[in-house]
């Protein structure tokens, strides 16, 4: 399953953008599809890595505590993985912005990606800078939000895991 994932991960959505237009038409569906196919295979790999890396000792402790599989998932696997999954989200959010620009290159009539494409075509340098600044600001805001969320939900991670 993972080798299929590796195969698909290396095909950039820009290579099959025309096929996506054929499947989803030009519009929101197409943009979402480009972003989805752009990051989903990376997401799968990184999420599998997180769960693969779970500290076996905590699972052992829970097993010896006589906990059932469902309880181990809820009380051990999810709390252990959560801050790491949020980190995966932060990294892939950055990649998603790149695919948004690609998505808005075709068929869009508004949006930051569209603005950049049009500004490039007509050499409107100032607009390119504005769009870049907007990307940076929105990215920074979302990243900070996720970081805050991670610290609020998993304070232990920053106190313990990062020191080890």
């Amino acid at each position, binding site marked *: 399953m993972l080798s299929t994932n590796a195969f698909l991960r290396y095909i950039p959505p820009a290579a099959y953008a025309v096929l996506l237009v054929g499947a989803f038409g030009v519009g929101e569906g197409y943009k979402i599809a480009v972003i989805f196919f752009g990051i989903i295979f990376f997401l799968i790999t990184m999420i599998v890595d997180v769960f693969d890396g779970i500290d076996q000792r905590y699972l052992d*402790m829970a097993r*010896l*505590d006589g906990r059932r599989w469902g309880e181990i998932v809820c009380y051990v696997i999810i709390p252990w993985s959560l801050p790491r999954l949020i980190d995966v989200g932060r990294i892939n959010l950055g990649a998603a912005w790149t695919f948004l620009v690609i998505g808005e290159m075709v068929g869009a009539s508004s949006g930051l990606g569209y603005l950049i494409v049009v500004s490039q075509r007509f050499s409107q340098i100032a607009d390119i800078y504005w769009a870049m600044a907007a990307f940076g600001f929105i990215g920074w805001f979302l990243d900070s939000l996720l970081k805050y969320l991670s610290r609020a939900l998993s304070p232990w991670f920053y106190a313990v895991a990062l020191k080890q």
Partner: protein
Amino acid sequence: MSGASVHVLLVDLRFDDGPRVIKHADFIVEDGEILGIMGPSGSGKTTLLRAIGGLEDKINGLCRIERPGKIGMMFQDYDCFPWMSVRGNLEFSSRGTKTDTARQIELLSRFGLLKWAEAWPWQLSGGMRKRLGVARCIVADPDLLLLDEPFGSLDYRTKLEVSDVTVKYVKQNRKKAILVSHSVDDLMMLADRAVISQTTPLSLEFKCERSESSAGMLDILERLEDAKFRHELISLTTKLIGAA
């Protein structure tokens, strides 16, 4: 389950088709007894404990544990779940048998953690965290405690304090414990009896002999086959006996 001794018999254990990790281990742990198992690093001590605790799913060979009862285990460097509060840890490890808040409070108070019941484990000192580890381990009232180098990273004073509560639990409640360590120090502080492993590459044999005193333990060590290991242990033990 108190009142019955635990008989451990492990023969020819290996992971899948890999090399043998334990050749032969055969011993009995009596009521109220802490059995110490000592051997050099890589001799299979932790695997032995994990096999007894039923944590090794991929192990093949004869693995028979008679009357183990409820098992509790303390891992090296892992005392509690860091994402649960002090009380949360005790609740989780109570095994849901009964939500015995009174027992949790009694344990927290006995281990000097009552004031810290709602704190996170990482807000505690090393010694307090280890005490929480012991409390977590015994909250469900296990019959057999498996201790995997549990006090390795503690300073001497804390080690004394934590081993004291562990010994009391085993002795007063007539429970059983198996302690695994490469430290003569830990063994002499806690164990009633010593089992020494003599290792050849990737195989292991346990000889079970009773040591009634520190001097008795020296006798056992004298008979070890591995010269380097024997020399190290004897010099350490002599030093400890001299200091006592």
